[in-house]
């Protein structure tokens, strides 16, 4: 409803102006960073690094600018409001393929948290049973992997665009729903569904374990702040390590950030999110160091982009060395 839109806009305007400001000291490089979403445990590493002074230790003056409902992180980057943003790998590659001078400077998530859920009562306990069924899918993004899955297996699925709630699925308005394991999946649990009442389909189990959150900046920013950006990645990794060892503190910090942004929050959900995001940061069997992007993952993501028949990208032949610094 409009009232809610107005509310949201007011909130987002508040967020747009909401930033961490610090006195500028001589000799410190300023970095403005925008995560891809509102404050939540998904970005705990950044909050911790800032709160614990890890950025300052490396000579960085960091401010975090959250996106709003109308201004995305990419908008902030393109209009020069921020130096670096957090984004999904697929989105980063898509931006580069669209011709934007975007470079990848760090990779925190090494795995995909994207998945589909169905209710056991629906009888859909195998992916092939999704044929002819309805699938709720976000209308604002994160569609690449689900669409690649449908394309890869040739399933005839009716996509139902949804905004950002799980209510349609709860009321059986769709047969299946795409969710983030660290976010919407727990929302379902927190809405009264038990885990044993759900069938889960992780895209990572279907050859689509594409890393997600990474850091991006424009090429010219990279040229001028190369060292500062490296330090930014380094300090953020330290922030994540600290968060893993001090979860209660981290949750308090995240909830404080959410309160400042007047966002509904509860520690239970943020704790779940923190735990799951921390799992994503660990490379596991992948031959890659923390904070870096594996070439194989990059190639897999690029393949998905190229196989997308719906969009024509002007510059789809991206090289890893050009993309990731």
């Amino acid at each position: 409803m409009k009232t809610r839109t107005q509310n949201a806009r007011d909130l987002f305007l508040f967020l747009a102006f909401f930033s961490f400001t610090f006195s500028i000291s001589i000799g410190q490089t300023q970095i403005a960073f925008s995560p891809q979403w509102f404050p939540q445990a998904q970005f705990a590493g950044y909050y911790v690094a800032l709160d614990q002074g890890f950025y300052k230790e490396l000579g960085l003056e960091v401010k975090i600018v959250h996106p709003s409902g109308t201004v995305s992180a990419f908008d902030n980057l393109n209009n020069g409001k921020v130096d670096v943003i957090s984004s999904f790998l697929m989105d980063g590659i898509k931006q580069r393929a669209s011709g934007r001078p975007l470079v990848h400077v760090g990779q925190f998530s090494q795995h995909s948290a994207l998945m589909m859920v169905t209710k056991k009562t629906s009888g859909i306990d195998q992916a092939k049973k999704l044929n002819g069924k309805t699938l709720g899918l976000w209308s604002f993004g994160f569609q690449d992997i689900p669409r690649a899955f449908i394309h890869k297996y040739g399933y005839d699925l009716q996509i139902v665009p949804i905004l950002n709630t799980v209510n349609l699925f709860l009321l059986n308005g769709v047969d299946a729903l795409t969710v983030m394991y660290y976010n919407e999946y727990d929302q379902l649990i927190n809405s009264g569904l038990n885990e044993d009442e759900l069938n889960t389909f992780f895209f990572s189990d279907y050859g689509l374990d594409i890393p997600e959150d990474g850091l991006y900046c424009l090429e010219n920013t990279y040229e001028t702040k190369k060292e500062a950006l490296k330090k930014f990645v380094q300090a953020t990794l330290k922030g994540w390590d600290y968060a893993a060892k001090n979860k209660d503190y981290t949750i308090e910090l995240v909830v404080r950030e959410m309160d400042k942004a007047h966002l509904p929050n509860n520690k239970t959900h943020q704790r779940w999110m923190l735990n799951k995001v921390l799992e994503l940061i660990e490379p596991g069997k992948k031959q890659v160091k923390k904070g870096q992007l594996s070439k194989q993952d990059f190639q897999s993501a690029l393949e998905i982009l190229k196989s997308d028949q719906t969009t024509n990208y002007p510059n789809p032949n991206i090289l890893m060395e050009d993309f990731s610094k």
Partner: protein
Amino acid sequence: MKRNSLSYKIIQRVLISCVALGFIIFAIQYAYTRYLVENTTRENAQLLAENAVNEIEKVIRPVELIPENLAWMMESNVISGEFIYSFLEKIVKNNPSIYASAIAFEPGMSSKGSYYFAPYAYRDGQKVCTTQLGSSDYDYFIMDWYQIPATLRIPYWSEPYFDTGGADALLSTYSVPFFLNRNGHRVFGGIITIDISLDWLTKIMHSVKIFKTGYAFLISRTGSFVTHPNREYIMNQSIFTIAKEDNIPELREIGRTMIQGKNGFKSVTTQVGEKNWIYYSFLPSTKWSLGVVFPHNEMYADIRQLTVLILFLSALGLGLLVFFTVRIINKQIMPLAKFAHSARIIAEGNFEVELPKVESGVEMKELHDSFEFMQKELAEYVIHLKETTSAKEKIESELRIAKEIQMGMIPHIFPPFPNLPEVDLYASLESAREVGGDLYDFFLLDEDLLCFAIGDVSGKGIPASLFMAVTRTLLRSVANKATNTAQITASINKTLNISNESNMFVTLFVGILNTKTGELRFCNAGHNPPILIKNGKEADFFGLTKSIPVGLFDDFAFTEEHLQLGRHDQIFLYTDGLTEAEDIENKLYGNDRLLDVVRNHADYLPKKLIEEVHNDVKVHVNGHLQSDDLTMLSIICLRNE
């Protein structure tokens, strides 16, 4: 009061019984009261919840009718075109409970035919404004308020949301699908909504009070708190996140039951052990659920107060009971102590002591009479006892004298013949009673002949002792006249048979030893065979041919036997008191053991031998009461060959 006194025991038992009885009554009362309180509280909670539900429904139902009627009007084509704006404006203006209202069309279903068309009227302060909602920036088709009822084709109450745009309140949107008539077909036209403020809901919920801290809360169909006394929960927490955060799995189950549309009454216990009760009831219109919560402790607070009061009164009652019981019992049993005192004085010999006066109680009177009777009987008994004791003492005194006389009749100076070196002898007699029936005797018939005898009178005590005295006297008197032992025995037998009314008899062994030659003549009238010890080495019984005891038949012909004793040959004579001495298990001393002990000490002189046998018998009986006289006589020849 002493712990083992009668009054203490009576009071103790009375009190234990009273406490046990009181406890049972109290436990039943407590359990029943709890049952009643639980039932009453449950009914009260149910009533409170249902009242609140009814109040909410009373507000909700009329509001729901507005979009439902509007849907009918849309389908009937009563309102269309630009008229929709003014119509919506009037609806909002005329219904204070409505904050905003919209009619959102499906793409191309409005009269304008545009993709987005959603006329919207809303309050802005005192004014009511109108606008069109839909645009590419506001794609209402994917918003819950539109998408859910449009997909499910049923009315839908949205999850409550906090509006900061103008209403500055908690709102919920009620969406109703409407249909349009197109070319004779009923097709889905879009969604009609009304937004209502939930402030009144909060007021209703806050008015629900139960006990001291009991409260009511409301959750949406996803379990999110719509109202709660803790405002931080609203729009932040769901019943499921609280259940997880506080680790209360039962709460999660209750939450699931609530959103499934069920009513119920359940308890939950927090991690710190606080138990709470929840009555929950479903709201049919919004599909939300209402819960009434109250702490377990508070439910039983009144019972606890009542329990404390009952316990206090019980303690007081018990105290009074103890006080009066002690007084009454002490008063009732006081004469017992006096009787006890009197009994002690009586026991000291004062039978004339005055008994306590008894004023009441049949039992006490009986006791008094019994004491009086006892006093009288005791006095008489003591007099009788004195007489009896005196008589007994007299008899005992006489018996002592009789024993002295009896012992005086038998020789007891050893060695008896200091001038007769050819022979040595020793004898002992130990009566089982003051006087006994055993006898032994020895005396010289001339310079060479030693006459000796050992005997055992049938029976015991004074009759036997008298018979023994007669026998011994007869022996002395006939021995000098007779020529052999058979004649001596026969003579004694004849005399004893005269006037032997009591049929007493005596076993007798009479012997005459020629101290110079060692020739022994003897007659055994039913007596135990003596032992012959040859030269201080071998020992065995001899004189095994027994005649009958003397005193039985007056003309019995006794026979004499001969035995030649060598130097250092010894004869050992005894009565059956020796071989029949019993130990505690009534086992007899026996011939074999006697023979063994004699053989083991065959080289002993008479005195030492008799002492040794005596000691061995003592070892055998081991303190057991002596039942028969014990008499031994031993003679050894010491003559030169």
